[in-house]
């Protein structure tokens, strides 16, 4: 413990950018995010092109429940705030507070996932299966891909927390916290477009 305290006492102001390796990791991660933008772009393009092809299945406005979408949006938005608090605690070299915010972020992420699983089950019961129509296939692919990203983010942050516990809070683990927080914000940014384009525009189109 005292050894850790010693290391923490010597942490630089921005421990996530202290080494060249860490700065390269962050740059590399941004390049990855550029590719993620393109990935979600293709899914959005497919969804936008096919969203009116409902075949015999239910339409978007029959299916979507705005209160549930709003709840999911609030959960994810709040989790984005808690993950930025974790980065802030990291900048203040406050390991305990950082880990607490990361754990809250994970719990909110799990809440979002639970809501999404419940939502998809409801839709399937209402006759909106994956192969019902071009609309349903592109909907599940787009929203499901985002859900998979949330699940991956939860797993990732959990592993980062485990590493901080095991290896301590230092210039090697700090960039991992920072990058996983950026990833989490990116998931929230994609969700902004999903609730706008998929749910709200789906409701408007009638």
């Amino acid at each position, binding site marked *: 413990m005292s050894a850790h305290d010693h290391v923490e006492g010597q942490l630089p*102001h921005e421990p996530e950018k202290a080494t060249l390796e860490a700065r390269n990791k962050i*740059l590399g991660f*941004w*390049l990855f*995010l*550029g*590719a*993620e*933008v*393109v990935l*979600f*772009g*293709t899914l*959005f*393009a*497919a969804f*936008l*092109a*096919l969203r009116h092809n409902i075949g015999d299945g239910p339409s978007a406005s029959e299916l979507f429940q*705005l209160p549930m979408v*709003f709840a999911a*949006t*609030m959960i994810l*938005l*709040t989790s*984005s*705030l808690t993950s*930025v*608090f974790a980065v*802030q605690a990291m*900048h*203040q070299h406050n390991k305990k507070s950082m880990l607490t915010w990361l754990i809250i972020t994970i719990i909110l992420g799990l809440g979002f996932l639970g809501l999404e699983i419940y939502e998809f089950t409801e839709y399937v019961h209402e006759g909106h299966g994956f192969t019902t129509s071009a609309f349903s296939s592109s909907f599940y692919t787009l929203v499901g891909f985002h859900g998979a990203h949330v699940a991956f983010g939860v797993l990732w942050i959990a592993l980062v927390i485990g590493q901080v516990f095991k290896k301590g809070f230092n210039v090697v683990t700090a960039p991992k916290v920072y990058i996983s927080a*950026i990833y989490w*914000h*990116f998931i*929230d*940014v994609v969700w*902004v*477009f999903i*609730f*706008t*384009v998929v749910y*709200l*525009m789906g*409701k*408007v*189109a009638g």
Partner: protein
Amino acid sequence: MSSNHNHAASREVSKRHKVEGPQKHIVGFILSLALTIIAFAAVAAGEINETFTYIILVAMAVVQVIIQMAFWMHMKDRGHLFPIIGIIAGVFVVITMVIMALYWVWW
């Protein structure tokens, strides 16, 4: 007494590095919240004409994403030229793809 001491210490730190407070993140959160509520309200009200609703929705989403990227993804901080170029390139590709897909399927 101890709070005075802490105050002096934090001032000393802020002289060396600009220590960020939680305020700007809370401001970002409240702005995002407001933009989200406006978007949901515009649809829930259902009284506004369809084209105008679309314009509101897209505007709210774009503003919210810019706020979140600037504040929460630290893109307004120094040394983020490459991330900005990368994301703009990604957005350019996305817009091209969406137009292409709509054109391909519908016209």
